[in-house]
């Protein structure tokens, strides 16, 4: 018997997948608010982020992103409890400003985008045609939300 939230998260992931939309890339970002359902990173960027994650993050947050005290979960309900309603800028800059906990600030800006892209990927948000990048102001316009379209 596994813990009660195990099937629930699979359901969440499936729900997320069913709402996947076509990537809108930088064009939509430039036009104003968008959200993480618009395909704001590329698959390759997420894969590079995965490799970085395993190297820099997994020892505390675990390879499967479940977290272990005091490192929080980075997938599923644990992730969304902390990040739902915030922006990609919040996520990327938090990663860069405070992580890895034993060497904060050691990720370059592009690397922090890659790790953020991996976390979006791991939480079921779709990849798109353009890499995650941009100014803090632009990134602030990309909402992390469990409800597609809420940003508009």
């Amino acid at each position, binding site marked *: 018997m596994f813990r009660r*939230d195990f099937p629930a998260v699979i359901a969440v992931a499936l729900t997320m997948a069913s709402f996947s939309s076509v990537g809108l890339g930088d064009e939509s970002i430039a036009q104003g608010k968008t959200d993480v359902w618009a395909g704001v990173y590329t698959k390759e960027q997420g894969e590079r982020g995965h490799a970085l994650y395993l190297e820099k993050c997994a020892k*505390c947050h675990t390879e499967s992103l479940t977290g272990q*005290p005091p*490192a929080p979960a980075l997938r599923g309900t644990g992730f969304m409890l902390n990040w739902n309603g915030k922006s990609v800028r919040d996520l*990327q800059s938090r990663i860069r400003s405070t992580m890895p906990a034993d060497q904060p600030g050691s990720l370059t800006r592009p690397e922090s985008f890659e790790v953020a892209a991996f976390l979006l990927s791991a939480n079921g948000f779709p990849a798109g045609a353009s890499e995650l990048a941009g100014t803090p102001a632009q990134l602030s316009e990309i909402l992390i939300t469990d409800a597609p379209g809420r940003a508009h």
Partner: protein
Amino acid sequence: MGWNCKQACVLIASGLALLVATAGAADKSQESDRNEWRYYGGDPGGTKYSPLTQINRKNINKVRILWNRPSVDSKLTQEEPDLNPYGNLEATPLMVNGVLYAGDALGLVEALDPATGKTLWVQEPLVPGFRGLAGISTRGIAYWSEGSKRRIIAVRTDDLESLDADTGRLDPNFGNHGRVSLKYPGPSGPLPDGGLSGPIVVGDVIVVGGGRADDVSVRKGVASEDIRAFDVRTGAPRWTFHVLPRPGESGEETWEGGSAKLGGAMGAWAPLTADLELGYVYVPTGSPMASFYGGQRPGQNLFANSLICIDAKTGRRVWHYQLVHHDLWDYDVASPPVLGDITVQGKKIKAVMQPTKHGFLFVFNRVTGEPVWPIEERPVPASTAPGEKAWPTQPFPTKPAPFERLGVMTDDLIDFTPELRAEALKIAQSYLMGPLFTPPSVVAPNHTQGTLVLPGALGGASWTGGAFDPDTQMFYMPSHTHVYVKDLLRPPPYVDSLTMYAAGPPSMLEAAMEFTDIKDPTELLSRMAQQPDVANVYIAQGPDGLPLVKPPYARITAYDMRTGQTAWMVANGDGPRDHPRLRNLRLPPLGSSGRVAVLLTKTLLFVGEGSPLQASAPRGSGGKKFRAFDKATGKVVWETELPAGTTGAPMSYMYKGKQYIVVAVGDAKHPGEWVALGLP
């Protein structure tokens, strides 16, 4: 960004301005001036007591916010847009010689004007650029002076730093250009090797506790988080106390079968305290590695979960007392030991009062280590986990009474309504219930889902600790209540951890396989690893998100230390009384579960509700309220709402004729901020 000319000029100019501002102000002795706040806990003994009286019960209703500001100087965040300070600002400032010194939300020390909060200087980072600025909040910093030499001692990431208190520049005569590495051998943990709680200076010695991991991890061979001391002038190592005894050292025999070689962790990650007259430092140590399963470390496991008194000059252990034997519950001794003089049955005793995660206040003579009231070794439940040999007895203080609900039995479950009672019972019956120290259990189909553990591993008490009033000999203890589920199914996804489990007969994985249809170890591991949310796993939920056990969920307990008796206990905050299933019942305050620290003044007790970031349980509890309680009765005499919940311990000082109370606040959407309260 580098530490560029513009910033350097700002720093130098600010430093000069400060030098001018403080010129002629002869430095005071190391004796604490109680208009100031010279130590993390107010004084070396960590009483969190200020004798100031300007803000008092008569005028408390006039108190308002005098200034507030982001903890990180806005110049830094403007120049580095990627800098995103976290809301969990755990620091408490010092106030010395008319300057407020505080670690900010990045862990950088800033000097502030006590009257306005304006930045006087920001410390020089160890390395230039973004890397030097990035970081997380630490809890405490220390101050030391000798003649005209004045230093701020801080721990940031893995470094001990000495800063010129007048300029924020690193002291070139200390260690390697102002820093000493605190890195333990071996792989890093999730927290800095020097811990977050900060150093303490005892005489001319800096003592650092450690605590890189608070190690619930089961990594094999994790470092022993030894207690270390350094020369305050030069940073040279002075002594090291091995929390994991080395071959031939006292305590090695408590790791049976040579299991000390697997050791480690056990760092003292709570703030340390000291008796400057005795020259002793009081060190509360954490759990050993693999805090929930000790099959690989049979024995009592010294010096884990202990209060240790160490001679700060030599590193000699004067006395120790282990408060949890062979820990299986992650019951670190996680609160600062509080030093105070008490009179019991006509006898004056130099006491140390040690709150614990598991809800006790242990009280000792701090000179000899002798318990003030008897501590009994009582039988506790055995473990049913394969390979586990729980220690048969645990220490129970006969006085004072515990400040938390202990263990989960049927009578502890909520009974707000018969329906809720029935639902809580149904939930609880799927777990193993039992008294305090019921060991974690294996979860499996047709078996219970693990052990309900109360107090949970977040405390009870934690680093926020208690407070002691030296005038009245009353001790005040804030604590919160949540039930943990401790199960033994899920091995973390480390090869080494599996090796640890597998090394004992039989392994946890094998045990799990006995109870499941999944016989492929890879598949079983894969399924276990897919469980997504540790928080939900660890904290037991009652019906509809309500707690599983009866209130209060956060409380303040007052003890009369002359008798060891409980004087009063009150709930702190409303808690879930507005929950849809409770709101028609017109319940009294139930307590808002959050981690909080108390500030005592001559007439009042101040405490917040705790930010949701502060280990609130269930998640999102805590609140923004900040209250003053009557110290004699526990009655709320004043409350206000802060911009966010409290994240650090409040402190107080007098500056230019005005008393201030400063506290850190923040939450997930509110970067860490200082709030200063006082009379208009």
